[in-house]
């Protein structure tokens, strides 16, 4: 990934359509149904997972995904290849999902939410777990009974069990929306930082703040969960 200088606010994508992307677009324009079916196969689940952040139910999220595919087909002629096919598809999705979400009166405009979220202060760890600044020996270090424990003794089966996963999913669902978007795309879906910034119209810095907070909350949720076991 190239290191690009920070620009203010929205950072334009560092990706343009690859040769494979352009070939696929051509195939779609020619009405190649197999190409379309495999594209749907590739992204459908991810589209729904992202859509559900903005709307009220799985069913509505699936509708939004359908609308997205329609939008993709309708927009084929206009695709100029200035972004990758993937980021283009997912921008269509986020636009549709946010519109739908607002129509459902589920949330306020996302741009407002992001700046509010970023500006609020949010420590990653409960401050009471650290010694005070005037502690004689270990100021601002983990308190004696508060240091995180090792998870190495937890068997992998338990880590990846359905129950643990559901707990993580609940933790993600409880995140503020912008944090949820970023951690879903970065960590659940495995997207690069540049792709996420592109689709969500975030600066690198803001994206990192949101990712940091989201991960901190999920880690805390897992720590609490394992602590009870």
């Amino acid at each position: 990934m190239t290191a690009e200088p920070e620009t203010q606010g929205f950072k334009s994508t560092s990706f343009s359509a690859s040769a494979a992307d352009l070939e696929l677009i051509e195939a779609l324009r020619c009405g190649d149904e197999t190409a379309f079916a495999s594209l749907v196969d590739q992204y459908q689940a991810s589209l729904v997972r992202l859509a559900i952040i903005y709307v009220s139910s799985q069913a509505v999220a699936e509708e939004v995904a359908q609308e997205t595919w329609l939008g993709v087909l309708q927009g084929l002629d206009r695709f100029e290849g200035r972004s990758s096919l993937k980021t283009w598809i997912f921008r269509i999705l986020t636009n549709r999902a946010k519109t739908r979400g607002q129509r459902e009166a589920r949330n306020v405009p996302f741009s407002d939410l992001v700046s509010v979220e970023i500006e609020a202060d949010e420590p990653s760890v409960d401050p009471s777990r650290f010694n005070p600044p005037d502690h004689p020996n270990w100021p601002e270090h983990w308190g004696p009974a508060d240091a995180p424990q090792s998870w190495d003794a937890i068997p992998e089966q338990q880590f990846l069990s359905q129950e643990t996963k559901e707990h993580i999913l609940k933790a993600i669902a409880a995140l503020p929306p912008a944090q949820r978007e970023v951690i879903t795309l970065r960590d659940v879906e495995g997207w690069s930082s540049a792709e996420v910034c592109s689709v969500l119209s975030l600066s690198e810095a803001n994206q990192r703040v949101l990712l940091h907070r989201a991960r901190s909350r999920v880690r805390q949720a897992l720590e609490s969960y394992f602590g009870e076991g």
Partner: protein
Amino acid sequence: MNCRELVELVTEYLEGTLPSAERERFETHLSTCSGCTSYLRQMRQTVLTLGKLTEETIAPQTRIIEGDGDQQHQANDDFVPERVDVEHHHLIL
């Protein structure tokens, strides 16, 4: 660097965006602090586990595979997320 500071820098560290001087202080602190070492490890494990959420079915996508005659098969979603972030992958693992 103290522990309270370190936990706020964990993401930047994993992203590889900490300036080198700060990264050195980060790693020096880690080498003497088991609490922070555990914390970083927990964070790595959290991220790893997040990446595995889609390996099993969260929202099962069933698809009827055509051409199987009378039998209908269901394919579960085994989409593995693209790991484009190769540069950071080694840090996470």
